[in-house]
């Protein structure tokens, strides 16, 4: 996290506010605490085999999970928000929902990408492979990532902005159908995954480990909130900049046709008709005779 610029910002020209700066500072502190807990205070995952007495477990690789698991949870949250906002786009058409949907999708995709990367790096020592093709959760997460990559590509295409936002909303609503599959896949296809079933409910993991994981949820939740806030504001500004220029364009357009050109165009002189293009599309206002 790079709160530095926000904290020291001295002009009004930022997307920061007092609230977001406080959140930013708290997030940085939280990340530091999380780092200390994850790397210093918690123990590695070492278990003793009951019959052979051999050591086994994830050893220090377990420390990766303090960031991997919360990232995954926050991905769900961001994409869920995107789905809700997309419904809002289709029902209410207000720019607020549209900007929210776009912000949530973009931040969610950053998180989703990190889930895949951290999972892959963790899987190498623990599962002995970077990528496990048979794993349902990996597959469904990858599909989720790809669908939202498509969403962001759709967002960047040229086209009527209102059309693009409605179509993007449809894409998002279809993409989130994959969310329950990602989440429940571990239960539904027990024999087709290397992921553990959810262990939170049974409190199998020890106290400090559990606490660190919970802190991970909280801190990465704060990271998500900070990023969403700023991404929303950037989107809002992009939109305001456009609205601003549309207002100017309307004013400009109303005064753009000199009387002389109008006179020529509507046929007050006999030669006027030749000044027309057969295919009169609304485009170049200068298309009359020079």
């Amino acid at each position: 996290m790079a709160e530095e610029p926000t904290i020291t910002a001295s002009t009004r020209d930022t997307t920061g506010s007092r609230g977001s700066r406080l959140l930013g500072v708290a997030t940085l502190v939280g990340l530091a605490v999380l780092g200390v807990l994850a790397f210093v205070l918690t123990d590695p995952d070492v278990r003793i085999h009951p019959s052979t007495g051999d050591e086994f477990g994830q050893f220090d690789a377990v420390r990766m999970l303090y960031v991997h698991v919360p990232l995954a949870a926050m991905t769900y949250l961001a994409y869920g928000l995107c789905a809700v906002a997309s419904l809002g786009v289709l029902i209410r058409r207000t720019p607020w929902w549209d900007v929210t949907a776009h912000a949530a999708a973009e931040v969610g995709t950053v998180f989703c990408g990190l889930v895949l990367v951290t999972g892959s790096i963790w899987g190498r020592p623990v599962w002995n492979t970077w990528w496990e093709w048979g794993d349902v959760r990996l597959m469904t997460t990858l599909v989720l990532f790809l669908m939202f990559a498509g969403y962001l590509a759709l967002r960047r295409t040229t086209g009527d902005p209102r059309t693009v936002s409605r179509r993007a909303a449809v894409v998002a609503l279809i993409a989130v159908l994959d969310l329950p599959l990602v989440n429940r896949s571990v239960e539904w296809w027990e024999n087709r995954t290397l992921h553990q079933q959810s262990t939170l409910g049974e409190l199998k993991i020890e106290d400090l480990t559990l606490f660190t994981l919970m802190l991970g949820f909280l801190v990465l939740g704060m990271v998500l909130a900070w990023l969403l806030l700023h991404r929303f504001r950037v989107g809002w500004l992009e939109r305001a900049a456009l609205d601003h220029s549309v207002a100017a364009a309307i004013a400009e357009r109303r005064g753009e046709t000199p009387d002389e050109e109008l006179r020529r165009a509507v046929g007050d002189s006999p030669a006027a008709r030749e000044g027309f293009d057969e295919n009169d599309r609304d485009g170049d206002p200068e298309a009359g005779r020079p």
Partner: protein
Amino acid sequence: MSVVELRAAVALLGRFPALSGVDLTIHAGETVLLRGPNGAGKTTLLHLCAGLLRPESGGVRVLGHDLTGAADRRSVRRRVALLGHATGLYDDLTVGENLRFWARAAGLSAAEADRRTDEARSRLEVPDRLVDQPVHTLSAGQRRRTSLAALVVRRPELWLLDEPHAGLDQTGRDLVDALIGDAVAAGGTVVVSSHELDRVAALSPRTVTLAGGAVVDGPSGNGGIR
């Protein structure tokens, strides 16, 4: 009763304000000629009245519907005929297949569709030998007649004709004029955007001048409306 009622209507094409605040009222049974330089917003105005565009701001009522609502735009669309620059026909289908398809798409029964299609074809003098020819083999004039026939079949209440005379020979132009006469006689309302000012003038329309995406007083002052 007013068929079209626009109050400071703004419509965007992408981010371009093609209509920058149009005030216009058109009453039932009127024939209106839209004129103005290229890029004045004539086509966009027709599209807005057809229910194809969502107004960005201002009041837009057509045939009693407020066009801000998607459902209202849909209801308006099926009661309006729009002749645009494109043919609106499937190139690979024959004239007969196209006419039948568009008649059936308008919700007519098979028998009714056949009857009205034949009627429209004879009104627009589309010869029988063309019926089984694919549209892509037709001349531009024949295509335009076919497009018009496809609209006649629907018996619309409001006609929006964008340059209807373009690309037609003399007979075709006379047919368009006769068609406008038919529509008005049947109680319909017609809005024509045209550069054929002399020709349309014969139909004694009300003239509306557009410039810069808004209605302006015509420079000659004869019939410009604010």
